[in-house]
């Protein structure tokens, strides 16, 4: 379970152009459920996602992950938490250009000191599961949108995290690929994983596999979303 208590995130704090991306927000995300954060651009969805995933720290308030207060954790522990708990799928996939699909997927496990052969085997297995094993040695810049997204999902799942975080996962996909993505998410849910996504795509937030939809506007949760 992920719990936000009165969380505020202010960018450029103290400067003239300071603004609150998230303001005094309370939120609970249940384990083994699919939660979608929806809202217009600039509403604070992505900021919320980075706070959930420990990629940024709140300006004030507290965040609990699996009953552990993580707001004031030193950077080293926060990194460890990202390593063990979260897998990220970014809106623009954020694959590293110039590297192959396989190398990108293996990236999270690279600094852990595990034997390369073993990591490679696990990466191949994931690529097979996501039906892109034939592209394993292709450079990521040669992939189509759907292939790049499946590569990003494989990279997010390589360390077998209990929580998958995805930022606008269908924004760059056509309808067919969006449905295929939702099938993958259903599979993950069936495996007992928690999924948190941002999306303003009705195909996502209206999907029957989604357990909770949270509407965000101006950094706050809307009580009566339209």
């Amino acid at each position, binding site marked *: 379970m992920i719990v936000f208590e009165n969380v505020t995130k202010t960018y450029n704090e103290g400067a003239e152009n300071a603004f609150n991306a998230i303001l005094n927000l309370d939120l609970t995300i249940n384990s083994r459920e699919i939660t979608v954060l929806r809202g217009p651009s600039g509403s604070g969805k992505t900021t919320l996602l*980075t706070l959930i*995933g420990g*990629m*940024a*720290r709140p300006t004030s308030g507290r965040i609990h992950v699996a009953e552990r207060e993580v707001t004031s954790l030193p*950077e*080293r522990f926060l*990194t460890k938490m*990202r*390593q*063990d708990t979260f897998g*990220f799928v*970014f809106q623009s996939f*954020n694959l*590293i*250009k*110039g*590297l192959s699909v396989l*190398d990108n997927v293996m*990236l*999270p496990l*690279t*600094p*852990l*000191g*595990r*034997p*390369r052969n073993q*990591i490679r085997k696990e990466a191949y297995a994931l690529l097979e599961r996501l039906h892109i094993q034939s592209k394993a040695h292709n450079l990521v810049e040669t992939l189509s949108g759907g292939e790049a997204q499946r590569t990003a999902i494989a*990279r997010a799942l390589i*360390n077998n995290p209990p929580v998958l975080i995805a930022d606008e996962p269908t924004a760059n996909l056509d309808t067919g690929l969006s449905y295929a993505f939702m099938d993958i998410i259903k599979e993950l849910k069936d495996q007992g994983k928690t999924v948190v996504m941002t999306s303003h795509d009705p195909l996502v937030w209206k999907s029957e596999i989604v357990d909770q939809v949270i509407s965000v506007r101006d950094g706050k949760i809307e009580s009566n979303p339209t």
Partner: protein
Amino acid sequence: MKIWIERQRSLIDFTVAGLLRRKVRNLGLMAVYSCVVFILATVMLFTHSLRKEASVLLSDAPEITVQRVIMGRHALIEHTDLDVVSKIRGARHARGRLWGYFYDTANGANYTLMVPDKVHTIKQGQVQIGAGVARARDLKKGKFLFLTTNRGKLFKLQVSGILSTESELVSSDLVLMSEQDYRNFFRLPSNVYTDLVLNVRNSREVTKIAEKISAVLPDSRVITRDDILRTYESLFSWREGILLALLGGALCSFIIFAWDKTSGLSASERQEIGILKAVGWETSDILTMKLWESVLISLGAFLFAYTLAYLHVFYFSAGLLEPVLKGWAILYPQFHLTPEVDPLQVMTLLFFTVFPYVAATLVPIWRAAIIDPDTVMR
């Protein structure tokens, strides 16, 4: 330990892949780096070997040289002074030497004309010449060397041998002739010498004997072998210093260049750091990876350039820097230096080239790596 090795292997794999992704930039950087190290290493290797060569050659030189000085200028010394020096206790093998310079208007070169020791007697009418003179005058054994005295008289001397190229550092411009030819050529009376030389029975007494000579011949300058060696040392050090001072500028430019290339992290590099942090890399992982990257570039370029400089100096006679380092003479010696590497010099060069580069690379990476991945990616 096994985990540590596996971790380093994985990071090196990733680093190499990263280097290949930015081929042009990294190759450019390595080329500039190699150029700087190559020139610095050439100067250091060359001057160090010259010093070593000079000290080996001078080990056979007389321990003390006595020159007469009149009005602060070197003057001819008389035979009676040789008798005085010979009688000093502890002195042995005192003898007069005849040597001088001759400016050859034909090719604008200075030759050193000299009468050799008694052991290397040369017949009247014959000469032995250094390889530099042979090259300048296109002479071989059996051919004739023509020299004109300062009174316009032509001297014809047959070349009986060319001096060994192994000693070319000191013999390149040498013309050895008989005592009679020498005295006739310079119109010297039979009772004078250019200077006197002697050895000492007990080598620890050199300074003492030199003091005694100064006392009995107050109008003379006494030079010990160590003095000559020190002069060579300072001469080569001076030339090396001038070059290194000039190269210091080049080194500074390189550091600025490296700093500019590595510190100005591009948006894609910053984003890459953000991605790595987001997928679970620690700051130390990123720093280790970047450390490998800078070490591979700097150490690779250093080893490549140092090997090139070694070959340049010891197998190609330092062709690029020869005129600057060998001296003012027209007759540059052509000789192969004995390979000689000073570990302290290697470490100094390594420290002043690799260390600044690694620091220039790591500082900005560290600054980018310690902030939240979210900030880096934005």
